[in-house]
């Protein structure tokens, strides 16, 4: 099994292991591309495939071979709603307009001359985990660009501005009140918004590089918004216009799609609330199950996985076998960054041969526990976005 070093050259796992945690920490500190190997993974371990799960294809995370903390490009998903435009960098312009004293139009070169910042971040589609067919829409990256807040400050945001809208190059016709006398069809750009307060405080980035390479067209080239800790939909691709407003933007992807409808019990009543998809939720998943040769009729099993949230902080991860007690997993100390997934492992010891169900749950620093699908938090959710329930993995352990 090989990994690639930070320069892309192949390196054996043993070589990487020898590099050690100290080297890894240094790499992260230098904001280079950290590599990762699950600690303690032995050469004699072999994969136990998940039962009833579809094969993984290109351009989606291959959980069972997850070894790299920074996701390689061939496992990066992309979702687009209005097609995937190709924008020539030389013709690209970013407009900052609306409630600002000094509107600006910037070329890509002009943006690259602004202060440069790097941001490590795990980006997940809010629908990731909705079904076994959509479990791979997540990746971890180093993004490079210029921070949004000082640029907005330089434009002179007016005191009445409360909302920032981010528009992409991609556009489409949208029909409202379809098949009614009040039907209306309009041509609109893709848009998402956030409060001005959020835009200024969330380390929001205008990114033109991923992992030290220019963005690929399908990932939003030449410029995309990066909002650390927010679901993928907020990270507007092919960004071309930023508009400051004093009223709420209610485009399709704020007011109709990517709206979570969730019920909450209030006495005997369930009250449903509709909210825009924004911050990522606490989540973990077992990436793969490994085993060794049978010992005295039992199977040595170890699991590896990842946990993430909106930057609040993972306190611990626990793993359970069938209906047994929760067992603590080991969270890796490094690599580690506020808005990135953390890898974990759990040695489950010797298990009986046969089918078994393994599941993980993450617990954050405030004590919030990743729910099960049966918990009200998930069971009373009527839309599929924000799919963060515990995800049981079924495996067959042969004697």
């Amino acid at each position: 099994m090989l990994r690639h070093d930070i320069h892309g050259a192949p390196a054996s796992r043993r070589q990487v292991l020898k590099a050690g945690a100290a080297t890894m920490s240094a790499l992260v500190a230098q904001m280079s591309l950290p590599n990762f190997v699950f600690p303690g993974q032995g050469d004699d371990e072999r994969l136990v495939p998940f039962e009833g799960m579809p094969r993984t294809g290109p351009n989606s995370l291959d959980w069972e071979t997850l070894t790299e903390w920074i996701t390689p490009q061939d496992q990066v998903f992309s979702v687009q709603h209005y097609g995937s435009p190709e924008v020539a960098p030389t013709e690209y312009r970013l407009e900052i307009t609306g409630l600002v004293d000094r509107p600006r139009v910037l070329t890509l070169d002009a943006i690259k001359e602004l202060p440069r910042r790097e941001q490590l971040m795990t980006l997940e589609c809010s629908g990731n985990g909705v079904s076994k067919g959509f479990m791979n829409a997540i990746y971890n990256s180093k993004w490079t660009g210029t921070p949004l807040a000082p640029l907005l400050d330089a434009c002179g945001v007016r005191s009445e501005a409360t909302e920032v809208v981010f528009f992409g190059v991609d556009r489409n016709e949208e029909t409202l009140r379809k098949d009614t006398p009040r039907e209306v069809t309009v041509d609109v750009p893709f848009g998402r918004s956030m409060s001005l307060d959020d835009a200024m405080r969330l380390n929001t980035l205008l990114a033109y590089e991923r992992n030290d390479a220019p963005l690929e067209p399908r990932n939003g080239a030449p410029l995309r918004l990066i909002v650390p800790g927010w679901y993928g939909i907020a990270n507007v691709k092919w960004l071309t216009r930023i508009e400051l407003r004093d009223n709420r933007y209610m485009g399709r992807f704020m007011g109709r799609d990517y709206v979570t409808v969730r019920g909450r019990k209030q006495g005997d009543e369930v009250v449903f609330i509709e909210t825009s998809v924004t911050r990522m939720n606490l989540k973990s998943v077992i990436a793969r199950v490994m085993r060794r040769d049978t010992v005295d009729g039992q199977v040595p099993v170890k699991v590896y996985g990842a946990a993430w949230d909106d930057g609040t902080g993972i306190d611990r991860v626990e793993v359970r076998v069938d209906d047994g007690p929760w067992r603590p997993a080991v969270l890796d100390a490094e690599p580690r960054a506020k808005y990135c997934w953390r890898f974990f492992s759990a040695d489950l010891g010797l298990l009986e041969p046969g089918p078994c169900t393994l599941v993980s749950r993450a617990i954050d620093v405030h004590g919030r526990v990743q729910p099960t699908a049966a918990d009200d938090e998930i069971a009373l959710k009527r839309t599929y976005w924000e799919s963060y329930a515990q995800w049981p993995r079924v495996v067959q352990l042969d004697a």
Partner: protein
Amino acid sequence: MKRHRRGFPAAVITLAILLSVVAWRAPAWAADEGAKITGTVRYHVDPDRVWRYRRYYVADHKTGEIAEAVVALRGQSLRKGTYPAVEEVAVIDQRDHQFVPETSAIRAGQTVRFSNSDAANHNVYSRDPLHPFNNTIPSGGELTETFPRGGGISRPVELGCVFHNNMRAWVFVFEHPFFQVTASDGRYNLTGVPPGEYRLEMAHPAGRLRWSKEITVHAGETVTVDIDVSPDDVQKD
């Protein structure tokens, strides 16, 4: 007489054309004189160039036999025969959010029955300009689709599901019966092959592997051609 002189050559020409057509369509060999081409498709690992999804298709990583590889013949000699239509309906299920099988090979004119064994709704679409279709299959439902034209090994009909981007499948459609999809043992057997010169081809769409070799077969003989591929045989964009 004059009319006869003018008409006779035309009749002869017509007869000659008819005879030539009949001669072209008639088998030029007896069925039991057909050759047999057999072999095993194997994948050879290069540790520096990892095929990430090998685990799905290569059961024994030491010996490397590849499942779901399509092996087929191409060549003018195939025109020597007529081949009865295949009435059997092929089946592709949608199960656990996956097409099962992912790779199929059928005869031109053959029908495929698509079924949905999942609780979720699925869809089957093809964006092939020669054979576009797009149909939703509710849970427990099915639909049939006939593939009238053969694209051969170089042009399978690629299928997907509009609801689930990760679902994908390939249907290879042939105008002749000399093709096979390998099982986990990697073996293929093409029997009753008309004597002649061919290009023996292999495609593994999920692995983007392509391989081919010129071969000549004679009546009644068995030819063994093992197909050994490596990352060198990965098709480039």
